[in-house]
C-alpha cells in the first residue's frame, strides 16, 4: 500500500486530500498514469513529486508504505 497526498488544486480535482493504492515495485511514471486515467486529469507532467518528503524522479521505484506527495507549482505572489 502506498499513500498519495494531493496539494493545492489537485485536491479539488481528485476530490480528496489523499488516496491509498495497492502498489509496489512500480515507478512514479506508472503511478502518474494510474492517477491520470482514474481521475481523467492530464496536468500531472508539470507536478513536483516527493516520496517520503524527498523530491523524486519519474523513474523512482515505489515501495510498500511510501508516502507520495503531488505538489503542483503555483505561480501566485
Amino acid at each position, binding site marked *: 500500500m502506498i499513500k498519495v*497526498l494531493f*496539494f*493545492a*488544486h489537485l*485536491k479539488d480535482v481528485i476530490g480528496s*486530500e489523499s488516496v491509498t493504492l495497492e502498489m509496489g515495485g512500480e515507478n512514479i511514471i506508472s503511478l502518474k498514469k494510474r492517477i491520470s486515467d482514474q481521475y481523467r486529469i492530464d496536468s500531472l*507532467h*508539470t*507536478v*513536483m513529486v*516527493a516520496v517520503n*518528503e*524527498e*523530491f523524486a524522479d*519519474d523513474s523512482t521505484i515505489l515501495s510498500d508504505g511510501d508516502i507520495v*506527495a503531488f*505538489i*503542483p*507549482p*503555483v*505561480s*501566485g*505572489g
Partner: protein
Amino acid sequence: MSERYSRQILFSGIGEKGQHTLGEKHVLLIGAGALGSANAELLVRAGVGKLTIVDRDYVEESNLQRQQLYTEKDVEQKLPKAAAAKKHLEEINSDTEVKVHVIDATAQSLQPLVPDVDLIMDATDNFETRLILNDLSHKYNIPWIFGACVGSFGMSYTIIPGKTPCLNCLLRTIPLQGMTCETSGIIGPAVQMTVAYQSAEALKILTENRGALRETFVSFDLWSGQFQSIKTGRSKKEDCLTCGTAASYPFLQPENSTKTAVLCGRETVQVRPPNPVDLELERLGRDFSAMGYEVKANPYLVSAQKDAERIVVFKDGRALVHGTKDIVHAKSVYQRLMG
C-alpha cells in the same frame, strides 16, 4: 539604533553583531504585490540597510484584501505599487534606503540591478520571471528565495548558488501557467505564512547565519492542514543549464524577452513599445482628453477611460489594456492611442 532594534538584538541568533551586519545589506525585491509588500515591510522594520523594489503595476482595489502597506488613498491616486510602497516604508523606518523601479522585470531590465545586492527576494507572480531570477542568481552568485501562494496554499525554497539544486533542477517541465490568485483566489494567512518562511531565511542570510538555513522545500495548506518539508539534495542535475557544469543561463537570452504583448491578469494585456521610451505624461494626458477620454494622472502614469475601454500608460511606454484577454485587440488599442 539600539532602542529601535532592541528586541531583535536580544534574540540570540542575531545580537548586536547581526543587527549591524543586517544594516549593511542590500536586498533586491522583485514584485510589490502580496508577497512583495509584506516581505518589504518585514525587512524594513527589521532594519535592512537598503531595499530596491521592482514592480510594473499600480495599486487597485482588489489588492487591498491581502497586500500590506497599501491604503484606499493609494487606490484612488492609482499610485504604482513600488512608489506607494516606498512612501509607506519611509514612514515606518527612515533608516532604510528604499529605491524603486516602476518597470517590467525582464532579463534585460534586472541584469544591471543584480551585481550590487546581497540577496534577491522573489515576490513575482509567474515562472517566466522566476527562471530569470534563477539564472541571474547563478550568474552573479547571489542567493535568492522563491515564494509562491494561491488559495490557502503556499510554498518556499531558498536557493544558494553552488550549494543547493536550483529552481530549474526542481521543475520537471516549465509550468507555463501555474495557478494564480486571479483564477483561484487567495487568503491573507497563506500570504503571511509564505512571507514568514521567506523572511526567516532572508534574516539568516542577511545576518550571516547560513548554518541555520532550512535547506528543505516547504509547502503547506492552511485550510486543509497539509504540510511537507521536502529534502532536495538528490535533485541537483549536473547538466542543468542554470547551475550545472556547463551553465548557459538560457532565460537571460534576448530571444526570451522580446514579446511585445503578454496577458498579465484575467482581463489585462500588457503592451510594450518596441524600443525604450521616456514619455511626457502631461502631454499624453492632454492628447487623451482631446480624444474624449476621461483622464487621471500622477507622476508615474496616465489612466484613460472611454466607455468600456480602459488603458493605463506608464512613463516607460508600457501600457496595461484592461477589459480584454485578446492580445491582438490590445495591440491595436495601443497603436491607435500611442501612434
